[in-house]
């Protein structure tokens, strides 16, 4: 390939990247804005903190210890009488629900919270909830993800499973982004939402089999639990870390289905209300 050809191709792909528009801004600018907002978020939150982003890992670890101490023996029979299985099941469930609660609650307040900024500088509205999910994802990838990778490597000795972990993380991000867009838009109209949403997060946590096995749930309630978008993600994560096998296509399929559904519904709701937001923010 001649040098001229190479330059042409490089310029072509470079301009294509700049031609992709998200909410009125070119991709490059959008990503830079995202980066700057994520850094602001993390720096302000962990200012002077010793453990910083690692708190998002320490919290589920400590909670797992507490649950195992209290519920470990009662539920032992459902986990083949292995405490390790219970520990892993509780930990994986906690990690997912914690990520969900933190990222969506922060996304909820993100547009309204930046109202004064939005009234003075032209910025794409969608970048705010996205930056909250991105900040939490960064924490996850730096703190929890390495630990989960080690666990799955120890159980399965198969590097391919890390790819599985990445897919699940991506899916979790999708679900939370969709819900994040939805609640951040709703909050603009209904300023009571945070109180209500606290309860929603609790219900999601309680209905995801985190500290109890799914088997103890009576059948008529089980169908209601299926409404929880996180259940399939937690299932996939457990398959990976507990049994050491790459999650089955069915589980992955269910997980990605809820991901794409949440993302489309949230994104469309956000886009439909976007033009009305500036008057109320």
């Amino acid at each position, binding site marked *: 390939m001649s040098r001229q050809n190479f330059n042409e191709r490089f310029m072509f792909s470079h301009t294509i990247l700049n031609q992709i528009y998200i909410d009125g801004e070119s991709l490059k600018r959008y990503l*830079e804005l995202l980066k*700057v907002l994520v850094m602001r978020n993390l*720096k302000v939150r962990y200012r002077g903190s010793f453990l910083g982003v690692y708190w998002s890992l320490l919290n589920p670890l400590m909670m797992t210890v507490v649950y195992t101490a209290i519920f470990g023996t009662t539920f032992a029979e459902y986990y083949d009488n292995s405490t390790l299985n219970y520990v892993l099941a509780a930990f994986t469930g906690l990690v997912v629900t914690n990520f969900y609660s933190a990222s969506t609650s922060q996304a909820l307040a993100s547009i309204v919270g930046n109202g004064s900024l939005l009234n003075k*500088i032209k910025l794409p509205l969608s970048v705010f909830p996205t930056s909250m999910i991105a900040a939490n994802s960064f924490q996850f990838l730096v703190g929890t993800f390495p630990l989960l990778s080690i666990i799955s490597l120890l159980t399965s000795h198969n590097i391919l499973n890390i790819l599985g972990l990445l897919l699940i993380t991506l899916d979790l991000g999708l679900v939370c982004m969709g819900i994040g867009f939805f609640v951040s838009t709703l909050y603009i109209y*209904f300023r*009571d939402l945070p109180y209500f949403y606290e309860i929603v997060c609790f219900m999601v946590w309680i209905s995801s089999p985190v500290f109890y096995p799914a088997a103890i749930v009576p059948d008529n309630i089980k169908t209601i639990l299926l409404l929880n978008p996180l259940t399939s993600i937690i299932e996939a994560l457990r398959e990976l870390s507990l049994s050491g096998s790459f999650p089955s296509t069915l589980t992955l399929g269910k997980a990605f289905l809820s991901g794409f559904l949440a993302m489309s519904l949230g994104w469309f709701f956000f886009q439909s209300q976007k033009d009305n937001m500036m008057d109320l923010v």
Partner: protein
Amino acid sequence: MDEVIRLDNVSLWRRTQEEFSYDLKKTVLSMFEGKYQKSSKRLVIKDLSFSIQKGEKVGIIGANGAGKSTLLKLICGILKPSQGVIRVKGTISPLIELGAGFDADLSVIDNIIMYGVMLGFSEQDIKQRINSILEFAELQEYALAPVKALSSGMVARLGFSIATDVKPDILILDEVLSVGDESFRQKSKIKMDEFWNAHATILVVSHSMEFISQSCDKVLFLKKGSVVFYGSTKDAIHTYISSLSSQVESVEE
């Protein structure tokens, strides 16, 4: 001569915030009681049409609440018109309430990068300009200090330095030129003169008729969202002042 800003029959309706209830509870209850009303809107900008040529220095005057800042926000793209079309050609540098994007807990350098990116600089670009910005604002010693440690004058100087570190095609000023101590004011005057001489298109909102008559070629006089006069500086200011005195007369009666 080409047009850089053009408004055609632009109108803007905005929600009147006082009547809208943000409570989920109140809204649901009012729905049940059958009293639910769609929120009312107010016409804030009424059928504006005008155009600004490249290199013109245009002042915008009017009473408080006439719609001057709203018009600037429409031109910057912060608000979208309900009707009509706004066309803008060229890069805009908006100097509207400098320092609005600053986060008090972050260091000055972090804020420069964040504010710069929000204003439209690329990250690489703004990083290269950090030193020249700190120098102009005379804040080199405060580079790593959190912004909450700065006085309000310092914050304004910082905002001004960041926003004026470019050569934009269109500069928009919303009553921001009176910050800082005497030496800084002189520096900012020199900077503003640079812009004035560089054939940039400038829109200024000001209440100082003296400043406007010294610096602007044309003036737009707004009243309650409509254009009362758009033309030469002298005539526009004359119209504005006579409208004020007729108001005073009607009050005295």
